[in-house]
């Protein structure tokens, strides 16, 4: 059994009487890729921020292993255009970084040629890789990736997910990912946790996609995505089964089995 890096125990957070998260239980171990999914406003990012220590939970506890060292890749990078900054200088800002590691890390990620580029002119995919490099240079045993493929085209997304899986295999670190994209990410994930204020369902990708709570939020796999994903912003109904699927899902209901 791999070492457990982080465990959320009954994490809850509420603002002005509005509950953002409630009773979240979840854990991540070394070598495990956990993907957090959920609709907009479901509290995914809030949960990540609690883990990173950027926000305090109002109830519950985050149990961190004493060796825990996080490499964080934010959703996007905004650097004021008045600040001239090359990729190399950006990466040299990592606290206690070994500067000799910068180039090899960039090589691993296939962006060594960008080392002297200004950070403002990178494409979406390049920016994500530079951010990943920064996370790696912090020598993490847990990578926290907030929507790592945002603004990247489909081919680039597949490449990035492959890269992340490769890093996990090489470093043996745990990976916690927040994702919108269900299909691509599923293939690379050990555990999927679907949240919407609370944990709706969790388990292997196959288990979760078959779960009615998941289907209520994201539709039936194989159904028309453009309609099914995010078509249902309402909370799912506890204990209900097929009855919460909407009309257009019914027509495809057979595809699931």
């Amino acid at each position, binding site marked *: 059994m791999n070492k457990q890096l982080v465990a959320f125990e009954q994490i809850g957070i509420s603002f002005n009487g509005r509950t953002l998260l409630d009773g979240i239980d979840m854990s991540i171990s070394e070598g495990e890729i956990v993907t957090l999914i959920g609709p907009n406003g479901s509290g995914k990012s809030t949960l990540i921020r609690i883990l*990173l*220590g*950027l926000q305090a939970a109002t109830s519950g506890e985050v149990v961190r292993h004493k060796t825990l060292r*996080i490499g*964080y890749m*934010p959703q996007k*990078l*905004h*650097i*004021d255009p*008045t*600040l*001239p*900054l*090359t990729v190399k*200088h*950006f990466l040299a*800002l*990592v*606290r206690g970084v070994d500067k000799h590691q910068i180039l090899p890390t960039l090589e691993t990620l296939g962006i060594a*040629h*960008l080392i*002297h*580029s*200004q950070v*403002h*002119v990178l494409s979406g995919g390049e920016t994500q890789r530079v951010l990943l490099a*920064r996370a790696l240079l*912090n020598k993490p045993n847990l990578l926290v990736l907030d929507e790592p493929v945002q603004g990247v085209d489909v081919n680039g997304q597949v490449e990035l997910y492959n890269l992340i899986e490769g890093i996990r295999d090489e470093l043996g670190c745990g990976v916690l990912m927040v994702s919108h994209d269900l299909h691509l990410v599923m293939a690379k994930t050990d555990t999927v946790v679907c949240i919407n204020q609370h944990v709706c369902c969790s388990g292997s990708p196959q288990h979760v996609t078959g779960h009615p709570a998941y289907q209520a939020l994201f539709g039936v796999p194989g159904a028309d995505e453009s309609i099914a994903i995010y078509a249902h912003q309402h909370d799912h109904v506890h204990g209900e089964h097929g009855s919460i699927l909407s009309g257009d899902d019914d027509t495809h209901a057979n595809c699931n089995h």
Partner: protein
Amino acid sequence: MLDLLFRALLGGLGVAAVAGPLGAFVVWRRMAYFGDTLAHSALLGVALGFLFDINLNLAIIVLCVGLALVLVMLQKKHIIATDTLLGILAHSALSLGLVAVSFLDNIRIDLMAYLFGDLLAISQTDVYWIYGGGLAVITLLVVFWKPLLAMTVNEELAKVEGYPVEAIRLLLMLLVALVIAVAMKIVGVLLITSLMIIPAATARKLSKTPVQMASMASLIGCLSVCGGLWASYQWDTPTGPSVVVCAAFLFLIAYTLPIQRLKYFNN
């Protein structure tokens, strides 16, 4: 006369050298209005200094630092939008300063000199203050350069990587307060921010790294002081505004003439 000019030049160069790198941070972090607010409150410091008969430089520093701390606290409480808060504080402090000055009947204050600066009125003690304070600021900047820059680039990343972000943010505000306190003699409360921002903005055009921009800003600031002083000597113009006009002129040159365009791409 030459002695006077030399002292003015010495003081001006000292201030410009420090204002440059700090101005870069003010530009990067969009703190211009914050700088203005502190600067405007400096006049109140002068009035209080006269009133309680304490060293003026000290009075200004204490007031600026105090106001910076109050600002940080108020900002955290999110009572009101930051720019509104700054607007209220800036102009209340300036007005309060003017009102306080009017109560000082028995002391004649050259208000114009405090508002717009008078490089030629610089005393030997002022030069010591400028170089003492300047040295302290530069030393702190060099020592804390990496955390300051890491926080400026991305506060959340810096925090996750273990930088003490809150403390560093406070340090930066204190540094700005310190620079404003020592610089107000030179260009006055209304023009200090420009001496920080304009050279830094000019330097942006010519630099590829943060260190380059910071040092270039120092250099451009020093050039502006020389130019302004020379113009003031030549045409008998007010020194503070002359320095700012000179800085603005250099800015225009940098952005209109096709000199070494910043190369965004690889080499």
